[in-house]
């Protein structure tokens, strides 16, 4: 068996790869992580086989409980986003269960890839999945609750969905990382996450009410709520990108 070289300097030698270690490596890492997470979802189909049926069941159960077309039409926007919030909990738990089940998160840390890239990648993957979910839930609201969307309302609805899912994905990834190494993380995550995402629930519901024209609310009244969603998304995206590394280390 040959031995390692003895004449090299400890300080000078370094691993071959530095491309994922510098600032441009953040984007490469984010793309790598997002692609991996979406590929895992395509293989496991947890979103399609478990999360979507769960959220649709929640919508149907609300319909049974309220049992009034007039009430359902009025509360449809809130129910869409409530079902989304419940589903976010499952999706965030799943996203980090994949990383912790066999110690992959530790391996990611020890591979030296930027934590910011991990955060962005997981956020993007979660956002893509949430957009699919919200699209299906809006469709369910149209069918089950007789919600109506005009073309101009559709633009507001799509913009709201993008801003709200971005915020939910960012804060979900941040708190998912926080709870990943904790005992009782399954119960800890809802306790941490639900109070924080209350502004998203309020803003997205008000904006969706405008998009649906619920109670005769004008579409123009929905746009200011979009500002709240955008601020929330930017705030938690930046906070998550900065804090994710130290948070994983602790």
């Amino acid at each position, binding site marked *: *068996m*040959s*031995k*390692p*070289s*003895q004449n*090299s300097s*400890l*300080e000078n*030698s*370094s*691993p*071959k*790869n*530095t*491309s*994922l*270690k510098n600032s441009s490596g953040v984007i490469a*890492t984010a793309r*790598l992580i997002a692609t*991996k997470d979406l*590929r*895992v979802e395509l*293989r*496991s189909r947890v979103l399609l086989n478990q999360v979507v049926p769960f959220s649709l069941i929640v919508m149907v159960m609300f319909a049974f409980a309220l049992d009034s077309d007039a009430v359902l039409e009025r509360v449809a926007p809130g129910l869409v986003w409530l079902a989304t919030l419940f589903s976010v909990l499952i999706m965030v738990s799943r996203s980090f269960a*994949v990383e912790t*089940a*066999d*110690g*992959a998160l*530790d*391996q*990611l*840390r*020890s*591979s*030296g*890839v930027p934590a910011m890239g991990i955060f962005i990648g997981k956020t993007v993957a979660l956002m893509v999945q949430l957009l699919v979910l919200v699209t299906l839930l809006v469709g369910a609201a149209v069918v089950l609750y007789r919600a109506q969307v005009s073309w101009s309302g559709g633009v507001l609805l799509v913009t709201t969905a993008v801003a709200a899912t971005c915020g939910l994905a960012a804060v979900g990834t941040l708190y998912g990382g926080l709870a990943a190494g904790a005992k009782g993380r399954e119960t800890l995550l809802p306790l941490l996450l639900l109070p924080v995402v209350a502004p998203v629930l309020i803003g997205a519901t008000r904006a969706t009410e405008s998009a649906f024209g619920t109670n005769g609310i004008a579409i123009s009244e929905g746009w200011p709520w979009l500002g709240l969603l955008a601020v929330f998304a930017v705030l938690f995206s930046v906070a998550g990108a900065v804090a994710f590394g130290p948070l994983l*280390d602790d």
Partner: protein
Amino acid sequence: MSAIAHEPGTDVVVDLVDAVAVLGSFPALAGATLSVRRGEIVLLRGPNGAGKTTLLRLCAGLVPLERGQGQILGVDLVRDRELVRHRVGMIGHNNGLYSDLTVTENVRFWGRTVGASTAEVDAALHRMGLDGRLANLPISRLSAGQKRRTLWRDWWRDGLNFGYLMNRMQVLMRRAVMNLIRFLNWLLLPARQ
């Protein structure tokens, strides 16, 4: 806890003096002193809870050094712990594999994190005997031994200072462990040339 060192080299790659590591509020490592030279193969022994895993995690830069002094490959563990991580591979209790992805996808993913090219990944798969029917199998369908083979994917790293820290040795016969480490050393050699 005791350490048995073999085949001493010259340069010190692990240098810990009175190292203290705390997990939560529990001192998982209380004043460990260890010196390992380049090329040495070290076997850590000790009862459960002695701090073997924490010591390895400390050396891999995954656990902060609360007190004492520590340098890994010349990098100070207090100031630049993150710099240690990509220069040290750690095989812990877990494999770090994604069970829903195939062997090839796992190796490719982890290869990308250390900058391996597609050709290097393919060569690694071939070298580890994972390029046949196993290549497209999901990890969840592999045996424990096949998972371990997939785990040794980082061998293409060509840093001369690259070291492997292995855990879970208690489940193996000591002689088998030493053979395993020698095999890993042999495996790492081509990447250094």
